């Protein structure tokens, strides 16, 4: 069964000021429960803001470090999920369900679904 890395991106500079409404929080909890009970998620995490991040590049034979926030990019990675599903269609359906809920809180969210290469 292939694994997929779902990379969720959002506009870090325009994040909602308020936490989700209780009704939406309830929906999010239900979805989390549904995903857990379906046994498809191997790993799932939200990332700390890019203001705490550091980029490392290898330039002219030495490491070069750049501290965040990275203002040049509008969308930054905000979280990831590792899903194990029968095929990509199944992974996309779970992603659709995630966005159906998350998109109501943070409408600009996009998710990129990438298959993890196995040897």
């Amino acid at each position, binding site marked *: *069964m292939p694994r997929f890395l779902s990379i969720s991106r959002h506009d870090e500079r325009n994040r909602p000021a308020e936490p989700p409404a209780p009704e939406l929080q309830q929906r999010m909890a239900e979805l989390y429960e549904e995903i*857990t*009970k*379906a*046994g*498809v998620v*191997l*790993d799932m995490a939200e990332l700390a803001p890019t203001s705490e991040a550091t980029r490392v590049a290898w330039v002219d034979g030495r490491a070069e470090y750049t501290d965040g926030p990275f203002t040049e990019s509008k969308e930054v990675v905000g979280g990831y999920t*590792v899903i*194990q599903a*029968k095929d990509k*269609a*199944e992974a*996309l*359906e*779970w992603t659709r369900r995630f966005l*159906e809920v998350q998109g109501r809180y943070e409408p600009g969210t996009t998710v990129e679904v990438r298959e993890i290469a*196995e*040897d």
Partner: protein
Amino acid sequence: MGTASAVSTAEAVETVFRIESARIIAGVARIVRDVGIAEEIAQDAVVAALEQWPESGIPDKPGAWLTATAKHRAVDLVRRRETYSRKLAEVGRALEDRPPAEPPDDDDIDDDLLRLIFTACHPVLSAEARVALTLRLLGGLTTREIARAFLAAEPTVAQRIVRAKRTLAAAGVPFEVPGGAARSERLDSVLEVVYLVFNEGYSATAGDDLVRPGLCEDALRLARVLAGLMPDEPEVHGLAALLELQASRTAARTGPDGAPVLLAGQNRAKWDRLLIHRGFASLRRAGRGPYALQAAIAACHAGAGSYADTDWTAIASLYGLLLEVQPSPVVALNRAVAVSRARGPEAGLVLVEELAGVPALRDYHLLPSVRADLLEALGRTDEAAAEFARAASLTANERERGLLLERAARTGAAGGRAAREGPV
């Protein structure tokens, strides 16, 4: 930018059904009290979706649509049955002595899923039948996929499933998760099915492939589902931990040519860190049941940076505990191996010799294989070669046989050389 892609209706129906089928069947089974009929009704709902969605568009909550449609049909069926029974009663015939169906409601669909799991794994069915029915109803595998995985003919598996459904109906197995003392016994039966499926994939008992990873993954998913549904059952987490940790070694267990690689020779960089991490997390929620203890043993291996770092003393004592809760000659043999690593081949061989006459191990290839290993370590090479050859003659797995014959030849040759050169 990529290009926009559209999902066809048929694909959408198929995907949603695959994700939801077990839940739909479970919800319907509670209404109609028959898993066979429930499966048919669930498939009817798919046909309805294929007819209606191209016209109406894919509904916002396609899973809920399929579930509602299937339940609606189930209620219709029950009503027709009841009307029929009433009419029979009116003409003075005996009523069917079925318990009246509960009115359908939407409460706790996950309990229905658990009911379905406990029903499919009911001990009234043979282990083979439980495995086939569980993979069909809960794993979403087609009859053909099950047949391929178990190297059986498709009609044989189809028959097995049909008969299992009939047996459940004939025995009047209630669609429920049993409570009290029966619960733990029935849970054993459920866990055993998942474990059997995993093992069939992990150490294929016949044929050319040492590992059929598809089955391992199906079993792992079932274990994860069970852990999600029964978070308060320690042994469910024990089983999940065991399977996660075993599966973490899959990529390292076979060489590029498909030959098995033993634990000692495995490239630990190829172990799956994510599954190891998940295994440890499950183990923290597990108790001290047989699966949990086996998981703890697997965790000792997973936590060792190299084979030389393995804590064999801890493993030997875990096998000792396992032998108490689950006395079995195979566990005793494994304990002997661990003891030999912890205290030397002599100590291990003493324990192995004790098992020599045990009838259950008479045709078990690992007994001579372990004995051969220890004899080789003690320099008794001629005896070792004979035991390797004996082990080869007992295994049904082609790859394993090859490995054992190779070791028999090598040990024999080394023994011959040593004899010619004489003691130094």
